């Protein structure tokens, strides 16, 4: 019987200061460790406990896990005090990450589970019937909306774009941070722009030398049209989700038709491609306290789901009616 609480030992091979209070750690393992973008791993430092993190590096180097960690508590404080050559424990990966390969790996388990559950509901609120889901042969673009540290679990996807996404998939990023100094992974911005990723930044308050957008991340929706025929991948603090969802709903309500049942990108009467995103195409990564990682301890439960096992990435349509989910 496998012991799911056992950890693998990983040696810190490099450390880089990312922004104030945040460091990046490269952890080397003796064996291969395979994960997909958006999945979580548990970091263990005996004496200080464990916590869940989403790796942020390239996933094809299976012996290295890259973490970007803010010093917020005891465990992360201890990690920040550690030096190259010291070791930590890792277990996982757990859960489901972002839907990939044009959504062919669409979370089979949790979503099948939720569909069964919600079909049983008597009020017919569930709209996610598989016949209306976007079909896999249709290309789908991705709108990434992130705030603060939210880019962390999406960087793995961006760095492994050719592995997980079709070459035609367009990517647009709306990224909000408090100040220009708080943007993570600035080293990658030029490369992403070269790859024709539409990266739009915003900061909370105007400051000297900043010529781009000012305001919370939703301000970018008013400034730039969102990429057509897209799914939205959201990651950030809970408060951000409320405003983004509100924004997306406003967009949907502003008269533009949503996707057709056949999965064809719908066209507006003027022949423009759809720039609305239905709640079946909104995915969000949720944070919860976790202890076991395997859906037993109950700390991360959200309605019928466990964040560690069925998430951390959920489809909005599946969780929107659960009190306290967002």
């Amino acid at each position, binding site marked *: *019987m*496998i*012991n*799911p*609480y*056992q*950890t693998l*030992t990983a040696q810190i091979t490099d450390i880089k200061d990312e922004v104030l209070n945040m460091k990046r750690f490269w952890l080397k393992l003796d064996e291969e460790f395979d994960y997909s973008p958006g999945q979580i791993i548990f970091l*263990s*430092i*005996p*004496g*200080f*406990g*464990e*916590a869940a993190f989403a790796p942020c590096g390239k996933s094809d180097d299976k012996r290295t896990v890259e973490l970007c960690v803010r010093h*917020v*508590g005891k*465990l*992360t404080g201890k990690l920040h005090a550690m030096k190259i050559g010291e*070791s*930590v*424990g890792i277990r996982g990966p757990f859960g489901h990450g972002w839907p990939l390969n044009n959504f062919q790996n669409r979370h089979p388990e949790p979503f099948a*589970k939720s569909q069964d*559950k919600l079909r*049983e*509901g*008597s*009020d017919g*609120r569930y709209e996610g019937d598989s016949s209306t889901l976007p079909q896999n042969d249709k290309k789908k673009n991705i709108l990434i909306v992130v705030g603060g540290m939210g880019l962390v679990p999406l960087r793995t996807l961006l760095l492994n774009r050719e592995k997980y996404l079709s070459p035609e998939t367009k990517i647009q990023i709306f990224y909000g941070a408090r100040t220009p100094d708080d943007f993570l992974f600035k080293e990658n911005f030029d490369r992403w722009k070269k790859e024709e990723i539409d990266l739009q930044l915003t900061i909370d308050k105007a400051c000297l030398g900043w010529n781009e957008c000012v305001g919370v991340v939703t301000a970018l929706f008013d400034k730039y049209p969102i990429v057509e025929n897209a799914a939205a991948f959201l990651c950030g*603090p*809970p*408060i951000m989700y409320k405003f983004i969802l509100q924004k997306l709903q406003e967009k949907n309500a502003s008269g533009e038709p949503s996707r057709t049942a056949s999965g064809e990108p719908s066209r507006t009467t003027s022949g423009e491609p759809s720039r609305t995103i239905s709640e079946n195409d909104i995915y969000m990564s949720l*944070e*919860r*306290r976790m*202890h*076991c990682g395997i859906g*037993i*301890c*109950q*700390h991360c*439960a959200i*309605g*019928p789901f466990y964040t560690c096992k069925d998430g951390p990435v959920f489809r909005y349509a599946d969780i929107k*009616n659960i*009190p*306290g989910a967002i």
Partner: protein
Amino acid sequence: MNSRQFSKLVSYLSKNYQIYATQEENGQVVIDELHDAKKAVLDNRLPFYSWKRFFVPECESLFEYDGVSLTPSSREQGKQTVLLGINFVDLKSIILYDRVFAADTYYQSRRNNLLIIAHNFLPGPENNLAHVEYKEENLKQYSFDVFLAAQENSVIGHKKTEIEYRVFAGSEKGEKVLRESGYKDYQRIECLGLLSEDRSGSAMNVFRDKLTNHHNPKIWEELGRRCIECGKCTIVCPTCFCFRLDDTPSLEVGQGQRQRCWDACFYQEFSEVAGPSTGSTGSPQAGSGQAPKFLKTTAEKIHFWYYHKFARIPDEHSITGCVGCHRCYQVCPVGIDIKKVLEDVYNS
């Protein structure tokens, strides 16, 4: 099996095993280690605590750590413990433990060392909210090693009377102890532990549907005003199994134990995450001294408790996460009565 043969079985067991049995103490039935075979009491009184800790202990060591490496804590091999006197209401909780911890190596090694002797005495209606009835044909759906079914002509109650049991062996282990104690007149049945409740139209299905699809905040807000978040209900509840992992250092530098201990969804830290203080709306609120958490109000916590038992457990394990023992009400300092709460949910 008559009372003389029962005594013979118990004295055989006490010679060969460590026994925890229901016994009378100051007029109450308690579960304690049995030192005198005559003291075992099987009757319809519900022990104050359930049998939970024998299956899911308050705290157990998962690993000994030294630096970064974790060595699985040693588990006792082959030393059998007898649990004597599990009543028909509490017996159901074992099905749940077996399902929740089916793939848990620590649970399984402990479980293999338990020998369960259950009986069909049912507590009175106040401690049998699910109106469980004993039916012989349903026995195979439960999980036990020996089952003692008091015959209908026996007097069921506090007073010591002549009781005849029909005896069932639910496992090879059960058969072995019966044979070795000199008792042969038992019936062997295959325990499947497969209890699956027919939910269609049942009250339990209504609770599940109401909690899943018709959330009524009023019920929980009202309870949230009364509940003081003491967590006593989670301690006595046979089906509360949530846990946390704690690192407990020893005096040696870099050494200690990683333990798994009971937790309670009413405790402040249960849903807490690291990060800056936030107000109830999620907005930063400097100096509030509260770490961000996802179960912020008492109402959310008590809803979480009920949702787990009456929606999430049924969805995951096909049984209700409540055996109906009413222990939660008996320990509640503010008198929250699960019976009344469920009536409110039903009628909401």
